[in-house]
């Protein structure tokens, strides 16, 4: 119990002897271990040689002869470099267009007065409720009509406007003192120049919050790209992984599946472990995406 006591050292004196919080804490530790088991298995199974046989596949003790064969197999069968490229392209494309749309719209809501402001504000708010995932059927026929079926642009387009991002930028811009803008106004800066040189540089934290939310959510998108993309070489990681899993499942190649999954989630996990605090605070802001 001494270790637990150390952790509760900053608790109020009267509560330090209470047993319930400690039991809750130990239960949480136990559950956190359970939560990590799928990841642990993924790591162990990736490195396990196929010669260990299917019956040892579930063993969580790492194999004594670790091998990179599974990673090589997944890399060769799965065309993961291509999928990674596609996903990166989709996420970057969405994010770049979103940066433009949310900056402009966010500025309009934060600093400009115009007729119908409340109405337009509610129009934006509607997007938060009508989650794009639900509108896959009408959006698919629209994308097809625009001639964008089976293109990465078609995958990206429904996400180019973001109500969440607009509100985030509005909040950030409202916090910037107007005196700064007035000074630029006197120097003869145009509207776009003021946005570009005053508002944007001062709102970098909000941009990074939005970037984290946008990239993680579109990195993980599945159903929509699955419907839009037909050619194997245009698949994003999630669709590629599902096809790969379905194939490898038939041959019971669980080590390869683990390796493939590892490759898909490694970029996000590594980025998260480096920027943990920023990720967590961004996700708190995200509420509804």
């Amino acid at each position, binding site marked *: 119990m001494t270790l637990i006591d150390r952790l509760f050292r900053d608790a109020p004196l009267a509560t330090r002897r209470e047993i319930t919080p400690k039991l809750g804490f130990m239960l949480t530790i136990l*559950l956190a271990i359970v939560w990590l088991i799928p990841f642990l298995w993924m790591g162990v199974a990736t490195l396990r040689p196929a010669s260990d046989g299917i019956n040892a596949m579930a063993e969580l003790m790492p194999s004594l002869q670790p091998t990179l064969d599974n990673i090589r197999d997944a890399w060769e069968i799965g065309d993961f470099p291509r999928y990674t490229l596609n996903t990166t392209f989709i996420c970057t494309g969405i994010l770049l267009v979103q940066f433009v749309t949310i900056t402009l719209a966010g500025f309009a809501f934060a600093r*400009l007065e115009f007729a119908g402001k409340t109405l337009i504000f509610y129009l934006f708010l509607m997007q938060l409720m009508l989650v794009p995932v639900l509108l896959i*059927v009408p959006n698919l026929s629209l994308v097809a009509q625009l001639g964008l079926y089976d293109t990465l642009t078609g995958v990206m387009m429904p996400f180019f406007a973001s109500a969440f991002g607009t509100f985030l930028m509005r909040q950030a811009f409202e916090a910037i003192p107007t005196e700064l803008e007035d000074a630029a106004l006197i120097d003869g800066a145009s509207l776009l120049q003021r946005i570009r040189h005053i508002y944007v540089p001062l709102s970098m934290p909000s941009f990074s919050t939005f970037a984290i939310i946008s990239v993680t959510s579109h990195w993980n998108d599945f159903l929509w790209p699955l419907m839009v993309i037909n050619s194997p070489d245009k698949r994003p990681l999630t669709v590629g992984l599902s096809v790969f899993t*379905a194939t490898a499942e038939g041959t019971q190649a*669980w080590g390869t599946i*683990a390796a493939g999954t590892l490759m898909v989630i490694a970029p996000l996990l590594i980025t998260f472990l480096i920027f943990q605090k920023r990720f*967590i605070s961004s996700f708190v802001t995200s509420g*509804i995406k």
Partner: protein
Amino acid sequence: MSLAEPAALPVATSAAPRLHLLKRLSSRFRASLPAYLLLLPSLVFLALFTYGAMGRVLIDALYQRATPKAPVRFVGLDNISAVLADPAFTGAVVNNLIYAVGTAIPSIGLALLFALALSRTNAVSSALRAALFLPVLIPMVAASALFLFIFLPNVGLLDYYIGRLLPVVPNWLGDPDIALTAIMVITIWKNAGYYMLFFLAGLQAVPEDVMEAAHLDGAGPFMRLRYIILPELKPTFLFVIVIATLNAVTQVDHVFVMTKGGPSNSTNLVLFYIYQQAVEHYDIGKASAATLLTLAALMGLTALSFRTMANREGRA
């Protein structure tokens, strides 16, 4: 002249305000123009993929094709009644309700436990928070790939370690009575860490001095939870419930990867049903009707979330 004057006068007085109004409107529009131009890029995409999509659902739900290549014809509410009469759809709705309740309650409960246990910041609790948050980051498809093995009969992780303790080893994903529960376990695993963040943020708002006063008065941990912490967390609860419900409708990737709605439709959820109608049966009319019904059901939730968000804004 004296006769013409009174006649001309009313015209002049009545024309002037109208002109004035027009001028005022146009000058208001001109003053608003920069804002409209800034909003235009967003509004174009919203118009295409949100409002336009809504309208399209409404229209598509009224039409039907006899075969995928036949011309569309107006069928009125036939699609809606066809969907409502489809046991696969009603089954999916029931499954989705079970799925919503069965994922929201455990994941929110666990999230609260995690947040209460890890509200103090130190190295250990930060590490535990990160561990519990990891599943939130990974794609549902990746989670499904891992759980596919975990639930694998006989040699899978679950059977290897726990299954042998049971008298009969269940076929987790193959048994219609268990498959939906197995699907729910993944969702709980994936979302609890996300909801935990909101509770952690909400706990910051619990005033320290009230807590101190409470245990000076002899309130135990459960009393403090019941009478101080939970009332303080009420807005957080509402907010998280809304998100959890939205997630229960929109997260179906694992159904696609793991069960395709089976066995015998026991894991079919509404959005997956819509996907099946549109992509596998090319039945846009029925898919749109089902979308329409789902959107209508979510409207109630929309009202609720508006109120929740207003509460949050009021607090901030």
